[in-house]
């Protein structure tokens, strides 16, 4: 009887600590959808830049024209905007159904801590593109995105941490296989998002 009361106390403490410091409404389903958008984006990219199937050593013959650069930017921006919009809408709905606020101190903290490594990486990579060091773009986007996830994991569902670590490892491996950036991108942003999104969906959303 007494022990039960104390047990309740402890689970109440845990619950309140989590609720007051972590944003718990992050939607796993939106992770799955973001992964699917990324795969579609990767497939469209593949068809844009690898016009012929010849290979030169380790490098595929990659054709980038002014026209295809515009198309690539359009694909990239569509994938990012769609993923963000899906994440925001589904998390907002999840927060509402759990009677929690979507925009409060915990979601603000999550966003800030996610953005610090991501924006750093983004600016760094834009400088690399300017210097035409395109080979490192794919590994570095994976690495910086992974670091952003690890950093954000203290402020939301803990599972994000493993997504981040997987991304970092993939990024490091892909540095060794520079010609296959797109493949690693699809693996990281596509399949990893789908896999971890599904894990979190079944763990936290499906009752």
């Amino acid at each position, binding site marked *: 009887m*007494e022990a039960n009361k*104390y047990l309740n106390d402890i689970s109440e403490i845990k619950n309140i600590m989590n609720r007051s410091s972590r944003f718990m409404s992050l939607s796993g389903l939106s992770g799955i959808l973001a992964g699917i958008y990324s795969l579609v984006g990767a497939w469209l990219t593949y068809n844009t830049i690898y016009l012929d199937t010849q290979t030169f050593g380790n490098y595929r013959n990659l054709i980038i024209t002014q026209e295809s650069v515009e198309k690539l930017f359009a694909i990239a921006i569509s994938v990012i905007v769609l993923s963000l919009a899906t994440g925001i809408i589904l998390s907002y709905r999840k927060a509402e159904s759990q009677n929690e606020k979507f925009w409060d101190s915990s979601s603000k903290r999550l966003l800030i801590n996610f953005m610090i490594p991501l924006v750093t990486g983004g600016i760094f990579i834009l400088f690399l593109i300017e210097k035409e060091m395109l080979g490192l773009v794919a590994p570095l986007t994976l690495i910086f995105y992974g670091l952003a996830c690890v950093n954000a994991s203290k402020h939301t569902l803990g599972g994000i941490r493993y997504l981040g670590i997987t991304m970092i490892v993939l990024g490091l491996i892909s540095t060794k296989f520079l010609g296959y950036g797109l493949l690693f991108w699809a693996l990281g942003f596509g399949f990893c998002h789908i896999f971890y999104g599904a894990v979190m969906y079944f763990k936290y959303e499906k009752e």
Partner: protein
Amino acid sequence: MKNIIQNINKAFDHRIRLGIMSILMVNESADFNLLKELLGVTDGNLASHTKALESESYISIEKQFIGKKPNTRYIATKDGKKAFKEHIEALEKLIQKS
């Protein structure tokens, strides 16, 4: 056994005070409205519990103005954090015993 019961702290033996301390353990500070929202209690109720914790000097209170609105922030003191940790450890031990 006697030791354990000594560490069960009467000051925390209430759901709301437990909640206030839990929030202040993981946040640098929290203002009155945030505590109210998270714990789902009335103004008067919350005020009386924060006062109780303050009189034990487990939390400190900072009053300031944000624009024209008064804003009260609560911060767990060193003593408060230590006492709360001991309280939780005592709870855990009691559960293991039974």
